[in-house]
């Protein structure tokens, strides 16, 4: 009798536990990271009653969570990928919209170069010159705005690196705390702790690529993509941030022992941030700076080849910052370094590291590729379009980072304020002596070296005989002489001429400053022609070409990032739906289970009621009997 009662009670109990579990499942249907739980029931051990055995009810073995190690790990990996792709996509989208919102550089460049044509079309008209300076300043503004947008993104990325590292450290320490609780729980680990544990690894995987290993006691060890342990048992190992050894505005990630690991981190938000900073942002900033330097250098050089409206050799129209040379904060020596740009067309988009090995200086790109340096007679070095000057005493291992064009776009300035300073006229002209008898004439004097101090000081080209020439200055000193053949060029004092026709013996040409030809616009035409002059990348690209390339580069980054985010999201969704197919709560299923356990409960209650009926009929039989 009591046997039946016990059996009924065990059934009631089992149904109640199962119903509670169903209830828990239903109430957690929308809880992130919740794993569906099921009750494992077994038959109670039967009691032998001699010839036969009867069952003795049901036992609750355990409440299990539906869980697949494989699917959950796949979800973590997919989450790293998706968070990383999303981060890159957000940055690339910002980059693309700041490119299109910062004003049209191509339009600004074209109206700047077109301004020189207008000056050439309307010589001596002050308003043309003034409007050229206006478009120059507008173009500088576009360069500056674009540069500032990029610089702003740099600092945004650096700030994000810091906050992401903070988040990683918080999550890792929480995970260590959970591990401690799991360890303390021993063999009977509550499911919610395990869910929390997995959930923390999930959020960690969004920040940084991780690999996780579950230990036999239910605790989990998490390693970052660098191989460094983030969480091991009840300990977490914090990542740190520090300023870059060269550039204090750049945040680097250090492992718990203080080694810089920025370059090794991959996956998740942090991996994407660091990758984007190095492979996209630095390059884009340098490329834009390169265009600014090439523009400034080419215009300034051509300016110097002409005369301004005041009759002076043309001055610089723009200024750009010199390459940034940043000493490492680990340097032990007293050496200091500086750099200047000598040939803008040889500049590249990379940054360089100059290092001293104890006996000599070596130059390499930041990517580690060696760059040959030429030692100059004055102790400076020439490399990659720059001249590097070093002073002080270096110690082995001292390094400098050189950023040739990083700041050029933000630092580009209009140096000219006086519209008369635009050197529209050719610097020099040639005048044939009236007594010349030959047919020789010199139409233009080309400036080959605008830095020559005697450029404008005047000279006479004479032909002592039809086949020899001589160049003398005003003091009668012979500057150059030699044999002459028609079509040959003659040069001295930084200029060169190519006479046409046949000069007769005794013919003379005086070369002098073009001060009676200031309405000449041949230099303005040459300046306008810079629009299509290949002044970048070894003479293969014009400034506008470079901007076109930059646009394509930025666009490609954006479209790749957006297609990557689509791919990674669908991978994540796949992983999620696979994991959810095991661990997720299905309300229909729970409804059916609820009905099932409700009925089991009612039936068990009937069993108890039957036992009670049997017992009371026995009692009443005895009383009446």
């Amino acid at each position, binding site marked *: 009798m009591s046997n039946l009662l016990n059996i009924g009670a065990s059934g009631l109990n089992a149904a109640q536990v199962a119903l509670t579990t169903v209830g828990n499942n239903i109430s957690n*249907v*929308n809880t992130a990271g919740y794993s*569906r739980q099921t009750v494992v029931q077994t038959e109670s051990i039967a009691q032998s009653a001699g010839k036969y055995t009867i069952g003795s009810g049901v036992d609750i073995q355990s409440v299990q969570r539906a869980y697949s190690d494989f699917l959950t790990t796949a979800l973590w990996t997919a989450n790293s990928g998706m968070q990383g792709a999303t981060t890159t996509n957000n940055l*690339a989208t910002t980059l*693309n*919209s700041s*490119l*299109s919102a910062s004003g049209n550089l*191509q*339009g600004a460049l*074209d*109206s700047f*170069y*077109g301004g020189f*044509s207008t000056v*050439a*079309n*309307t*010589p*001596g*008209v002050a308003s043309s010159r003034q409007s050229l300076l206006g478009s120059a300043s507008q173009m500088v503004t576009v360069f500056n705005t674009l540069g500032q947008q990029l610089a702003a993104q740099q600092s945004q990325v650096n700030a994000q690196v810091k906050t992401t590292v903070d988040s990683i450290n918080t999550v890792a320490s929480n995970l260590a705390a959970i591990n401690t609780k799991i360890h303390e729980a021993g063999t009977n680990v509550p499911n919610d702790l395990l869910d929390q544990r997995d959930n923390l690894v999930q959020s960690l995987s969004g920040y940084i690529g991780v690999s996780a290993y579950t230990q036999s006691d239910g605790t989990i060890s998490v390693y970052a993509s660098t191989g460094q342990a983030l969480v091991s048992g009840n300990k977490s190992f914090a990542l740190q941030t520090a300023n870059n050894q060269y550039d204090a505005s750049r945040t680097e990630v250090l492992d718990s022992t203080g080694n810089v690991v920025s370059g090794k981190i991959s996956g998740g938000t942090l991996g994407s941030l660091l990758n984007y900073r190095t492979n996209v942002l630095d390059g884009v900033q340098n490329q834009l700076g390169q265009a600014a330097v090439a523009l400034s250098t080419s215009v300034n050089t051509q300016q110097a080849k002409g005369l301004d*409206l005041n009759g002076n050799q043309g001055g610089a129209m723009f200024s750009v910052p010199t390459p940034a040379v940043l000493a490492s904060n680990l340097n032990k020596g007293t050496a200091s370094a500086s750099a200047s740009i000598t040939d803008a067309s040889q500049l590249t988009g990379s940054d360089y590291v100059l290092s001293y090995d104890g006996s000599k200086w070596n130059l390499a790109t930041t990517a580690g590729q060696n760059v040959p340096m030429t030692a100059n007679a004055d102790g400076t070095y020439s490399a990659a379009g720059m001249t590097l000057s070093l002073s002080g005493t270096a110690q082995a291992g001292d390094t400098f980072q050189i950023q040739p064009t990083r700041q050029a776009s933000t630092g580009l300035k209009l140096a000219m304020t006086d519209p008369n300073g635009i050197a529209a006229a050719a610097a020099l*002209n040639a005048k044939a002596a009236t007594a010349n008898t030959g047919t020789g004439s010199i139409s233009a004097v080309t400036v080959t070296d605008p830095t020559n101090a005697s450029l404008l000081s005047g000279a006479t080209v004479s032909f002592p005989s039809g086949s020899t020439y001589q160049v003398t200055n005003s003091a009668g000193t012979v500057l150059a002489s030699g044999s002459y053949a028609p079509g040959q060029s003659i040069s001295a004092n930084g200029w060169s001429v190519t006479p046409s026709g046949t000069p007769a013996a005794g013919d003379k040409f005086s070369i002098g400053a*073009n001060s*009676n*030809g*200031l*309405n*000449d*616009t041949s230099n303005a*035409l040459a300046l*306008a*022609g810079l*629009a*299509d002059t290949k002044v970048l990348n070894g003479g293969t690209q014009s400034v*506008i070409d470079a901007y*076109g*390339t930059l*646009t*394509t580069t*930025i*666009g*490609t980054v*954006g*479209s790749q990032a*957006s297609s990557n985010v689509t791919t990674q999201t669908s991978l994540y*969704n796949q992983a*999620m*739906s696979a994991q*959810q*197919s*095991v*661990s*997720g*709560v*299905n*309300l*229909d299923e729970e*409804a059916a289970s*609820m009905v099932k356990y409700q009925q089991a409960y009612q039936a068990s209650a009937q069993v108890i009621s039957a036992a009670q009926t049997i017992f009371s009929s026995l009692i009443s039989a005895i009383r009446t009997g």
Partner: protein
Amino acid sequence: MRLSTSWMYQQSLNTMINQQTALAATQNEVSTGNRINVASDDPAGAGQVVSLNHVIAANTQYSSTISSATTRLNTEASTLTSVNSVLDTARTLALQAVNGTLSDSDRKSIASQLSQIHDQLLQLSNTTDSNGNALFAGTSTTKTPFQVGANGSVTYGGNDAQQRSAVGSGLQVATSDPGSGLFMNIPNGNGSFQASAGGANTGTLVVGSNSVTDLAALNSTKAASGGGYTITFGAGGAWTATDANGNAVKDSSGNPVGGTYSDGGSISFNGMTISMSGTPATGDTVSVGTGGQQDIFSTLNTMISALQSGASDTQLTNVMSRQIESIDQSQSAISSVQVSIGGRLDTLQQQQGAYQDLNVTYQSALSDVKGADAYTAISNLSLQSTALQASQQVFAQVKSMSLFNYLK
């Protein structure tokens, strides 16, 4: 496969969000008319847009350069036409002085008309363009390139260079011509040499037109002797020629040149033929020079002073004939510049036409790259909105499907 209820909702939500995003992108495409709004929409296309816009900007710049060059050249051409007609008047007046006997008052009136023409010419030569820059100053900044000096002579303050405009990549067109070539350095005589009667001649010899009959001979003897000769007449029109050093001029066979001149005949040697009329007195000379130059203002001044000097008809005729030659040379210099301007204007017009055609081509290329295909975009728009509506309906239906609805 089991489905988790919350993930099921999430999935259909994700679908709707994706469809909304695509719809918004298409909507943007339709409303802006642009397929490329940021570079990432089509990186290669965005690069192409930059270079196409650059080419279009360059073409526009070239077109506006062509307009302003055309204006400059037209101004110059019409000024030169005026100069030419003024010179025509001067030439007619000079011919009047040559032909027929004039009274003193006739001479004075011609002189005063010529002096009027001198001033008119001076004003024309100092013509400025709409910006106040002198047309004929070369590339000099001087405002009045032609200045009258104290002795009445005109000096040129400009230079010999030409203003240029770039009307194409590597194509420059001169938009001005220096005044030195138009007004100042006018070659004497027929352009190769000038023959003029000696000032002390006493006969009635008048030197007429002269021409080059053998340019090679002229040049070779000019190189050998410097090109300056003096023809001296003896009795009965016999003539000999000497060079600048007083040596007899020899022909190609080495014999001294010479002959007898008769009224209305001509003298030829060394490739030159000089027509004359009248009768020379013994000892009268004709000097032959090459390479001389005179400015048009001096030409007018010389005519005016000859008219005012009270010289004999023969002397006046001789002086006027030489100056008429100078006017002819001046007009020929002007007409060759006019021809050159015509050629340049032609080039400009052709370039302008080419740029208009190219502009159409580039603009259509640009809209091909950048512009949205309206038909595709709008049909995409309706397709995507239909898809979104379908997803929303499915969601609404799925929402009501739950076993709990039936457990009452």
